[in-house]
């Protein structure tokens, strides 16, 4: 009983989560994932998935257009680097604000419908944004090339503060600390921890219960006196802001923004992450994001030569056969592996990784703990 209480306390959850996230460079190193680039991705996509889960997991509304907010966040951040300063805080702030405003517009229209129609509307809006970013909005997005830093950028605040000429392209900084490598990861990690904390509070708040009520039975909510629409719009905007935050962090770790970030495949990816980890759970989406990014990293790195080396211990004919079978699943074709993984999860663990962990937990630990409590009672 007491251990359950401790496990449920906010402080304990946050301490464990923070410790796990901040020590990632150490415990991920043995499996070859302990380098900054990938760690940054874990944190950024974890954040994206946490925010997506606030909409999809808590209200049940499946959006297929969240990549649009990711893109808006990136563009806003890069513009902040170009126009104002290389400091990352304003960039992140603008990323969140602009994506929030954009999410309000799209949500206001899309939330007139529910179910599949809502999903289609969000998909349509995201694809429109993607195409606009590619073509008409080239002055803002720099079209195909993508938005990049240049030496001619005004950077008003930076140039006011220092008159030293910058040689080459400046890098993103947090009050003097360069946001690349491990410092970049730790910045993303701190934002992830903050984002996780907010999501935790939301899920335990009256507001969160209202969202869960909407997911469970919207009719009942209406006839119970709830005006569900403003609640839905708020949930949509919050998750859009999380996406914008993730997008701006992408720009922080690598200051460029391209339209492909808004493409529907990116929207689909966050849906996969959330489902893979466990829809509606707090930690599930983070796990799902980490898993997908990790596998992407491993499988997409393989090429035919690496495969031949891997199967070199086999006789020649068998080796070639194995390479032929495996090669479509790696490298460029790693999405095939993702598809198979996704199917296995959906069929055997519809509740995602979290459900898997729960099952293991029940099988190995529940029996012994219930036996213990029995003996205590007797």
């Amino acid at each position, binding site marked *: 009983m007491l251990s359950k209480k401790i496990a449920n306390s906010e402080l304990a959850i946050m301490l464990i989560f923070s410790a796990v996230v901040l020590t990632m460079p150490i415990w991920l190193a043995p499996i070859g994932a302990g380098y900054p680039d990938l760690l940054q991705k874990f944190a950024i996509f974890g954040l994206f998935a946490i925010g997506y889960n606030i909409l999809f997991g808590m209200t049940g509304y499946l959006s297929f257009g969240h990549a649009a907010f990711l893109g808006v966040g990136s563009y806003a951040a890069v513009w902040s680097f170009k126009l104002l300063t290389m400091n990352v805080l304003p960039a992140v702030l603008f990323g969140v604000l602009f994506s929030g405003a954009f999410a309000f517009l799209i949500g206001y229209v899309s939330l007139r419908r529910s179910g599949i129609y809502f999903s289609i509307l969000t998909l349509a809006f995201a694809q429109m944004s993607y195409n606009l970013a590619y073509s008409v909005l080239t002055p803002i997005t720099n079209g195909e090339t993508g938005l990049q830093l240049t030496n001619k950028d005004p950077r008003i605040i930076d140039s006011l503060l220092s008159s030293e000429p910058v040689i080459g392209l400046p890098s993103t900084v947090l009050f003097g600390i360069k946001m690349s490598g491990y410092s970049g990861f730790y910045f993303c990690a701190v934002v992830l921890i903050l984002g996780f904390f907010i999501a935790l509070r939301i899920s*335990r708040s009256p507001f969160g219960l209202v969202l869960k009520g909407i997911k469970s039975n919207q009719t009942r909510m209406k*006839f119970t*006196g709830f005006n569900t629409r403003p609640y839905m719009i708020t949930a949509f905007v919050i998750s859009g802001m999380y996406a914008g935050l993730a997008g701006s962090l992408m720009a922080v770790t690598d200051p460029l923004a391209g339209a492909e970030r808004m493409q529907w495949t990116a929207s689909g990816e966050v849906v996969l992450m959330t489902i893979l980890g466990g829809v509606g759970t707090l930690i599930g989406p983070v796990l799902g994001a980490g898993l997908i990014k990790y596998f992407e990293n491993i499988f997409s790195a393989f090429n035919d030569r690496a495969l031949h080396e891997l199967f070199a211990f086999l006789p020649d004919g068998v080796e070639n056969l194995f390479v032929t079978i495996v090669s479509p699943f790696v490298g460029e074709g790693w999405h095939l592996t993702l598809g198979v993984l996704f199917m296995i999860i959906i069929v055997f663990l519809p509740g995602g990784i979290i459900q898997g962990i729960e099952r293991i937990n029940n099988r190995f630990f529940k029996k012994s703990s219930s036996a213990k409590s029995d003996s205590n009672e007797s």
Partner: protein
Amino acid sequence: MNPDNNTVLHIADVHKSFGGLHALSDIDLSVKEGTTHAIIGPNGAGKSTLLNVCIGRLIPDRGAIIFDGEELTGKSPHEINQAGVARVFQTPEIFTELSVLENVIVPILSKKDGSYRFNPMKNLKQRKDAYDEAMHLIEDVGLSPSDPSGSLSRGDKRRLELAMCLSQHPRLLLLDEPTAGMSRHDTNSTIELLKKIKERGMTKVVIEHDMHVVFSLADRISVLAEGRIIADGTPEEVKNSAVVQEAYLGG
């Protein structure tokens, strides 16, 4: 029928048709404060349609719903609920993914949070009053708070829905066949529960097929057939009415 001061709900000349079907024709009905008004009638008589019109699920073609001197026609369901009208549905409408306790807390939150309140950083547990009230009501209907509501029996789901409606302290409670699908024993305990509510002065409109329930609860009965009220009166009057006998009770 002229509504007098005691009237809480006045359904004034309401007409509703679906295509060529006249589901409700010229319904005029007054429900007095603190009474239990039963609506009976054969299947397809328009009873559920009448309740749907009252709670804003359907908008009448003609006529008005006046609740406590205020016109409800055309208002949205959540506004009508906020005005003090709650409804128990024929098939229980509960939050099957939530626990019994959460199911009752949601409607308690509705009074303050219903129209919109943004409090994502506040812990639900700080709403001690809501918790206490919910626990009390759940005890009243004989359920256990931590059970997942999705796995309750149909009768228990109904009882839970009733507790959810009661937690809102509505002035008017609409019940659509509250005992359908319940065992005799459950039916009797529901009747007792409804009688208890009556003592608190809550006005109720009950649709019911079970005559045992109707005659043990109702102060007044209206008989609906083919979208019209064919009889209206005290249980005794209705029982003895020749029209009703013919149309419904055994004719």
